[in-house]
C-alpha cells in the first residue's frame, strides 16, 4: 500500500529563513511525487511535481529514492508562503489516483 508521511503538523520560521518541509513515502513501485498547497481561503492547488524538476515560487523538491523522501525546500521564506502544504504520491502512469499526506502548516513570521 502506498503511504505518505509528513511528520510536522506545524512549521514556524522567520521571514528570510530557510524552509524545509519533510515528506517520506512508502510505495513498492516507481511513484510520482507532488507537492500541493492550500493558501488561506483558496483551493488546493498543485505546487510542483518531481518529474518537472522545476522551481515554483522559489520552492524545489528532490526525490531521494534511497531515503524515500521528497522534502520541499526554499532558501528564503516569504510571508506569502504561509499556507498548508500537502505531499502526495501516485503511481507512475495509470489514472494517477493520488495519496496525500496529512499536511504541514507553514507559518512565516514577519
Amino acid at each position: 500500500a502506498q503511504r505518505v508521511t509528513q511528520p510536522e503538523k506545524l512549521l514556524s520560521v522567520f521571514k528570510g529563513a530557510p524552509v524545509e518541509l519533510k515528506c517520506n513515502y512508502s510505495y513498492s513501485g516507481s511513484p510520482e511525487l507532488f507537492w500541493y498547497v492550500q493558501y488561506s481561503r483558496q483551493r488546493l492547488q498543485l505546487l510542483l511535481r518531481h518529474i518537472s524538476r522545476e522551481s515554483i515560487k522559489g520552492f524545489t523538491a528532490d526525490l531521494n529514492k534511497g531515503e524515500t523522501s521528497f522534502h520541499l525546500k526554499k532558501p528564503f521564506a516569504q510571508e506569502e508562503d504561509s499556507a498548508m502544504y500537502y505531499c502526495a504520491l501516485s503511481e507512475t502512469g495509470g489514472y494517477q489516483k493520488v495519496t496525500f499526506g496529512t499536511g504541514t502548516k507553514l507559518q512565516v513570521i514577519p
Partner: protein
Amino acid sequence: GAGVSQSPRYKVAKRGQDVALRCDPISGHVSLFWYQQALGQGPEFLTYFQNEAQLDKSGLPSDRFFAERPEGSVSTLKIQRTQQEDSAVYLCASSFSGTDIYGYTFGSGTRLTVV
C-alpha cells in the same frame, strides 16, 4: 466553466438524513475524482470516474456512499443515512486525462456537518 464548481459550499444534515453533493468539472476534463478530507487530515481518495465510467470506488467507506456521473460531466456524491463520522470536507477534482501533467484541478469543496 473556468474551474471546478461544487455545491453546496456548506451542508448541515441531521443524522440519518440523505445528502447529495454536486460537482461540475472543467469542461472537457475526462477524469473526475472525489476525496474526503476530515478535520486535520489530508484528502483521502473516495472514487474515480473516467467519463461516465466509475473505474475505482475502492475508497468509498461504506455502502451508504454512492457516486455517479451519468453523462460524463457533472457528478453527484450521495450519502445515505448520514452519520456523525461523515462530517468532513468533500473535494472534487478533475483533470484532462488521468496523466495530466498539470495535476488535478480542485473545487472549493463542500463542508458537510452531521448533527
